[in-house]
């Protein structure tokens, strides 16, 4: 009996150390810049009211699409919100908001208070869909053109410079 316990303990420890080793050798620095100039991955995101699904076909319809990942609990999202509001007034740009790991009521209050810049609103309750886009923290935004090509990624809140940048690219 004692021998079995000893073997089990050794096995568990070996396993833990093995995992640590694997984690070390994995590339954990989430460098998502490689996504730029690549085609948008296939995705299916459920709309906020759960009535429909959004896919790549929705992107093809517009010259430019900005997918913005946000949540009501994310303070920097509030900071970038006015920029999004401003972007929503530009033509040629569709903004898809993906509500990330959020509660429905809080997300609604957020948009009621600060305004809704999104043409399409989707949600990703457990954060799984966002992984496809290389999202690891929010806010994050991705600018995509008609041919589904990822043109630009914005990690962190959008700034005034980013705004000017987006306008420039669209021209």
């Amino acid at each position: 009996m004692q021998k079995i316990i000893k073997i089990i303990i050794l096995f568990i420890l070996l396993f833990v150390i093995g995992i640590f080793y694997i984690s070390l050798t994995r590339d954990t620095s989430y460098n998502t810049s490689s996504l730029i100039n690549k085609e948008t991955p296939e995705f299916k995101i459920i709309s906020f009211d759960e009535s429909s699904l959004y896919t790549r076909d929705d992107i093809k319809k517009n010259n430019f699409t900005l997918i913005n990942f946000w949540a009501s609990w994310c303070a920097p999202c509030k900071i970038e919100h006015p920029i999004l509001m401003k972007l929503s007034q530009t033509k040629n740009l569709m903004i898809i908001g993906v509500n990330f790991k959020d509660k429905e009521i809080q997300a609604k209050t957020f948009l009621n208070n600060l305004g809704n810049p999104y043409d399409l609103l989707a949600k990703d309750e457990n954060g799984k869909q966002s992984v496809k886009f290389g999202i690891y923290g929010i806010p994050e935004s991705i600018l995509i053109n008609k041919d589904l090509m990822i043109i630009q990624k914005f990690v962190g809140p959008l700034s005034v410079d980013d705004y000017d940048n987006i306008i420039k690219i669209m021209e």
Partner: protein
Amino acid sequence: MLSNLGNILLFLNVILSLSIIYIANKNLKIIGGINKIIFQLNLIQSTSIITCFFVLIAAFIVSDFSLITVYQNSHSLKPLFYKIAGTWGNHEGSLLLWAIILSIFSFLFLIYNKDHPKKFRLLTLIIQNILILGFLFFILFNSNPFSQISPIPSEGLGLNPILQDPALAIHPPLLYVGFVGSSIYFSAAIASLISNYSEKSFSLSIKNWVLISWCFQTLGILVGSIWAYYELGWGGFWFWDPVENASLLPWFAMTALFHSLIVFERRNIFYFWVIILCVITFILSVTGTFLVRSGILNSVHTFASDPTRGIYILIFLSLMIFGSILLLFQKYKKENYDLNRNSKETFILVNNWFMMFYLITVLLGTIYPIFTDALTGNKISVGPPFYNTIIFPVVAFFLLFMALGPKTKWIKNKFENITIYLLILAGAAGLNLAIIFFFKSYSLLSNFIIISALFLIISSLMDVAKALKKNKLDFARIISHTAFGFLVLFIGLNDIFSIEKDYNIKLGETKKFESYSIQLQSLDLKNYKNYQAVIGKLVIKNINSNQTNILNPEIRIYDKPKTLTYEAAIKTSLIKDYYLTMSNIDRSDYYNVKFQKKPLMAWIWISVIMIVVGGLVRLFNNAKNN
């Protein structure tokens, strides 16, 4: 120049450690006392490593940017205090601090344990020096703070502004004394296994070291929490962040350890359990270091990562784990505990179960994301909901045991006057009802916890009355236990009665909620030595009591490196804290203002300090009795 001097001192230390190991090993085979040279070598070792650290501090003070570490973590315009604190605020410097604590503890252990067998003392010294060597090699070949850069940059990159804080300047050294201090009882435990020194006097050799490291660990965690509270601007003080967890894990093991040491010292049982705890504590400390430094965890305070560091610490960790576990398997003999279910021994064992439960919960929560990531590629994060659901309900029971345990007798106990305990429990429940009634707030779990916290406090205080009559007062235990009860009570009350409001507000605008009004009266721009600040003047008015408070949160723009930070404005009083953060909203006149009223914050800090005071009193008593 400084670089050469530092490197020479590091090499000198390697030679010293090797000679100590060699001479101690030779000394083992000779009959008689410990060779005097060993003492001298130890003294030189401690002195030279401290000198080495001062060389690094000097490099920071004079801003010698020929050293990569200084270049990366300092700046010539930084205030002197933060230049000095920058020495240990980075990976390389903090490793040097590790080496210092290892050496000093090694020296002190040697000179303060003269009554113990020679073989045990020498073996402890040898093992401790093997650890020192491990760290010295790591420093020299992988993380050398004296590495040079060429051409010499004219200016440094600066220290991350959120680290420029007095609390954070003392946080790492405190925590390291706790973390690294546990190395000495790891070495002693291994030495005791090898030399078959399993008498209860073994407990005397380590118990003060356990207490010292525990006190520092607790203080280190406290200072870290205080820093997070006023610097990170979330208004919380504990986030179950992996790095915070890394400091908590050895704390659980230490707490379990010094409780079971009491039993070991008194009844000469639990020897192997004590040894296992000694080993676990230090292994968890190194594991914590591994998790933080290797960069495999993503957390607010991960150091800039470099995979080779991780590999090195992992190899070191594996050698330690497998070395100690194989030795333990070889030496382990089944102990027969003839424990009465109702005795102090059992109650202390129950404390240990609770500690192990917390330890395993926090450990799982911390490493689970690493496992899912490595095995399935799923990136998940385990957050506060997990810990709160699993840990808090158990705390309620833990407190009840904590109240009853100390009242039990050794070997065989009989609870007299059960009615008294029931009365105390009823009193606690009554008090809790009063709190709900007068302050109108309700949450089942918090109430449950508050009742048991009150139960612990009341019964500990009754112990004082009883003990004063008999003139036999265990002050240390009473202070720590009562303070722990208060800590949980205040956290519970704080949780129930906190208010949080979030507004976008323009200059001159006023917002009202509950019985408060909040107005952004003015904004001020100021220039400081290394940053610019936008300072808001916000007036918080309590309409009921007509009391006004002015708070000045800041938005700081640091130059080196260019960073924006938000400084919370906190008005602390004994009853409550007002906590206010302000952030700008780009291209608009609005400011986002987050207001929080957090009751009893000051008392949470005071309770933790009192827990440590209990530990210090015990330490003082131990010293007096020797």
